[in-house]
């Protein structure tokens, strides 16, 4: 472990970390100059468009492109025949980009054209004749698991069940996480609550549709400009799918207009490259919003059963979860992560979580912020709330009594190090929101949530310029202000001003491999690599100063951005500043640079607790969020404004998921609401001010104590809002979204029950 020693040099006092300077890309973004995915163009550029299946499930007998190819202005048409079939891990990715024998969902790409104008491309799409044999379809997870359901893949037999199934099914695999003895645990419980829940699929809902500009020559050399969370991922995947050498494809990450996990895979990029290769021209492809909804994202829809038992004095004795997640037309729903995270907030002796990964005729699910965790957390936190009410215990106290802490064996196996769940619960309990008076039809709810956070492959270079400024190159697209954090960490470490550092996201040919910006990893991992690169520069600068003074290198220390003679030489020479050493560098040995590459680990798990108050109109089911407060452990907030922003953004997405966002399928298997009008993400007037408390329990694996923060914030909101709504209306809500028709239905059903 090369890092252990260096990380031991933990910093706990800071000059710049924790301040709120203006982000380096800010002026470009407020003036409209920043260039996003769709903002690039190239000489001779063509426009690429995709023909998509109108059927949820259909065999593709034949595709006739002759008429489209003959249309004036059309320069290339591609179909499945232009991509080599394969049998490895990338097959599903390829088939999702371009259907092969079957169209597996409404919106599945079937063919694509490149033409001189968008209008000609549109016209060409209408001239492509696809011979479909329409097949029965299934879009609901429970329906897909029933015997007799239409089978999407006749070669799929459920993995990990004994005995091995003899018939194909839509269940790709089963998984299980368990500790202790569930039966014995429930036997010890005084009160047991068991409930079934459903959640609808939600989309990441980034405002920028997928876009790229591809240019690939007949020599196999090419480049793409693309909005993505990971340009190295784009490079490696596209090179593999198109049979190119990795080194010949150069990918530049544009500014990215949101991703939330949805831009961690390829959709149009291999298609654009294929069209460019075939036409010999640059090809620009930009998805419409309709395409974004029908053919990218979303997350899984789910069906879950949760059972938890507690003693009267509030100790949970056992917890059990059955989770069924559909991940669209291909295996890979995040059910395993759901099963691992479901009970992670609790210190439990007896716990069991079983997950089923199910396929249906929906778009292939893509990662969405803490993939798999929010749905399970909604269900578990609803049951925890109900249990607290049953034993008449304050919901914070009930959680505190069972909260995971350092040394707790997590429900998914490993033992927790230092974590901050208890601090978030105590912060929420102490917040005025927890005591604000509630009026009629108002309710309060809270919920906790957990996410792992990941780190991964990371590589940065820090170049020192002659004038004492620094050019920092990272390989992780900046999705929410991370360049500001990088500048802060470099400046802090080097002892120079924030303004002296400029951070860029380097293209794939300028810097070594970096994993995708996902798993809440960037401030942790690129930050760690930045700090280590800066420390390398400091080491070199001390050596240069030592040479200049004619003393030994280990007789020089670095303090406040200066090299100082130390030990017996202390005071013998005037300290040399960063700027002075930089200015002299060409005479003292050449350019100064630091570099660090690492497969980072230890992004530090994180916990959050959310509290919210709602008011529900009992006659219409309309829910207004009145107050919202978040406490989350950030380890160490580098730029607190952007940490708060991550908290608030997660809460707002959670408000949408809880109340109104959902994929609605018609009986025909077609998506009914593929637009922002009817896929209802929260607007400004749907949200209150969102109060935030940053808890800082340092992560021992980062020199400054940083933990990932981006994803955890979407785990608790649905539980918190469901608990608040249920309190307001006096009926337990078991389905997401809690849209007005569902709330009115729940209320009417209760009235009917009372009348019976």
């Amino acid at each position: 472990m090369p890092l252990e020693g260096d990380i031991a040099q933990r910093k706990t006092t800071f000059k710049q970390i924790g301040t709120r300077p203006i982000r380096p890309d800010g002026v470009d973004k407020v003036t409209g100059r920043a260039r996003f995915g769709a903002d690039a163009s190239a000489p001779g550029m063509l426009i690429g468009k995709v023909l998509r299946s109108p059927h949820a499930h259909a065999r593709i007998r034949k595709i006739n492109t002759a008429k489209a190819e003959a249309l004036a202005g059309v320069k290339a048409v591609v179909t499945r025949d232009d991509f080599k079939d394969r049998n490895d891990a990338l097959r599903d990715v390829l088939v999702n980009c371009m259907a092969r024998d079957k169209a597996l969902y409404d919106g599945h790409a079937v063919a694509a054209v490149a033409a001189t104008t968008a209008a000609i491309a549109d016209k060409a799409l209408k001239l492509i004749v696809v011979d479909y044999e329409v097949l029965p379809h299934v879009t609901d997870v429970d329906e897909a698991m029933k015997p007799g359901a239409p089978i999407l893949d006749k070669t799929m037999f459920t993995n990990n069940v004994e005995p091995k199934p003899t018939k194909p099914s839509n269940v790709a695999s089963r998984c299980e996480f368990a500790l202790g003895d569930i039966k014995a645990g429930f036997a010890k419980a005084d009160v047991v609550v068991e409930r079934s829940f459903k959640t609808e699929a939600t989309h990441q809902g980034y405002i920028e549709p997928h876009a790229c500009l591809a240019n690939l020559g007949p020599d196999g050399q090419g480049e793409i400009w693309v909005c993505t969370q990971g340009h190295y991922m784009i490079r490696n995947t596209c090179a593999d799918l198109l049979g190119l050498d990795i080194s010949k494809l150069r990918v530049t990450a544009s500014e990215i207009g949101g991703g939330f996990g949805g831009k961690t895979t390829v959709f149009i990029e291999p298609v654009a490259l294929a069209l460019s290769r075939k036409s010999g021209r640059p090809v620009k492809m930009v998805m419409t919003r309709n395409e974004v909804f029908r053919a990218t994202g979303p997350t899984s829809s789910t069906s879950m059963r949760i059972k938890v038992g507690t003693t009267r004095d509030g100790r949970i004795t056992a917890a059990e979860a059955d989770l069924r997640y559909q991940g669209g037309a291909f295996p890979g729903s995040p059910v395993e992560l759901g099963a691992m995270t479901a009970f992670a907030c609790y210190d439990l002796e007896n716990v069991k979580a079983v997950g089923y990964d199910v396929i249906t005729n929906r778009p292939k699910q893509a990662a969405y912020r803490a993939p798999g965790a929010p749905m399970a957390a909604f269900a578990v936190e609803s049951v925890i709330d109900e249990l607290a009410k049953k034993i008449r215990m304050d919901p914070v106290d009930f959680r505190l009594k069972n909260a995971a802490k350092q040394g707790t064996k997590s429900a998914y196996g490993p033992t927790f190090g230092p974590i901050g769940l208890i601090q978030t619960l105590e912060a929420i309990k102490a917040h005025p929101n927890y005591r604000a008076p509630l009026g009629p039809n108002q309710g309060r709810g809270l919920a906790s949530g957990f996410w792992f956070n990941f780190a991964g492959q990371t590589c940065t270079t820090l170049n020192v310029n002659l004038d004492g400024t620094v050019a920092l190159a990272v390989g992780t697209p900046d999705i929410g202000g991370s360049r500001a954090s990088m500048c802060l960490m470099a400046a802090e470490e080097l002892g120079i001003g924030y303004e002296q550092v400029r951070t860029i996201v380097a293209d794939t040919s300028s810097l070594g491999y970096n994993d995708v910006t996902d798993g809440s990893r960037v401030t942790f991992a690129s930050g760690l690599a930045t700090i280590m690169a800066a420390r390398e520069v400091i080491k070199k600068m001390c050596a240069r100063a030592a040479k200049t003074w004619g003393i030994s290198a280990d007789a020089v220390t670095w303090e406040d951005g200066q090299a100082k003679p130390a030990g017996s030489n202390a005071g013998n020479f005037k300290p040399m500043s960063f700027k002075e050493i930089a200015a002299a560098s060409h005479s003292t040995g050449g350019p100064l640079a630091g570099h660090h590459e690492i497969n980072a680990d230890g992004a530090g798990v994180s916990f959050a607790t959310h509290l919210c108050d709602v008011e529900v109109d009992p006659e219409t089911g309309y829910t207004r969020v009145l107050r919202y407060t978040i406490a989350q452990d950030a380890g160490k907030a580098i730029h607190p404004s952007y940490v708060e922003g991550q908290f608030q953004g997660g809460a707002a997405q959670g408000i949408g998921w809880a109340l109104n966002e959902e994929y609605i399928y018609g009986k025909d298997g077609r998506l009914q609401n593929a637009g922002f009008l009817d896929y209802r993400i929260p607007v400004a007037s749907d949200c209150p001010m969102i109060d935030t408390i940053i808890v800082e329990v340092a992560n021992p694996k980062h020199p400054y104590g940083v933990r990932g923060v981006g994803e955890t914030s979407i785990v608790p909101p649905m539980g918190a809002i469901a608990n608040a709504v249920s309190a307001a209306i006096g009926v337990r809500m078991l389905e997401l979204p809690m849209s007005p028709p569902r709330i009115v239905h729940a209320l009417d059903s209760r009235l009917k029950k009372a009348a019976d």
Partner: protein
Amino acid sequence: MARVMLGGTLKSLAGNTPVLEVDAKTIREVLDRVGEVYPSLLPILDRVAVAVDGQIYRNQWFAAVKPDSEVFILPPMAGG
């Protein structure tokens, strides 16, 4: 001997064995031993996450495993 436990899918792939004792100094050695005992896991062992004493590692062959370490092999994991 480090105590190695299998999580989730891996556990059922390995016939629901709860705990395995292996003599290994690094994660790579742990994975090699596990692969020898359970060839059924070989196709997936390249992609798993490994938790050593509570710390989760992905693709980290050389992370140290102590004789008294608690090791969890977990399914491949990714975030958004």
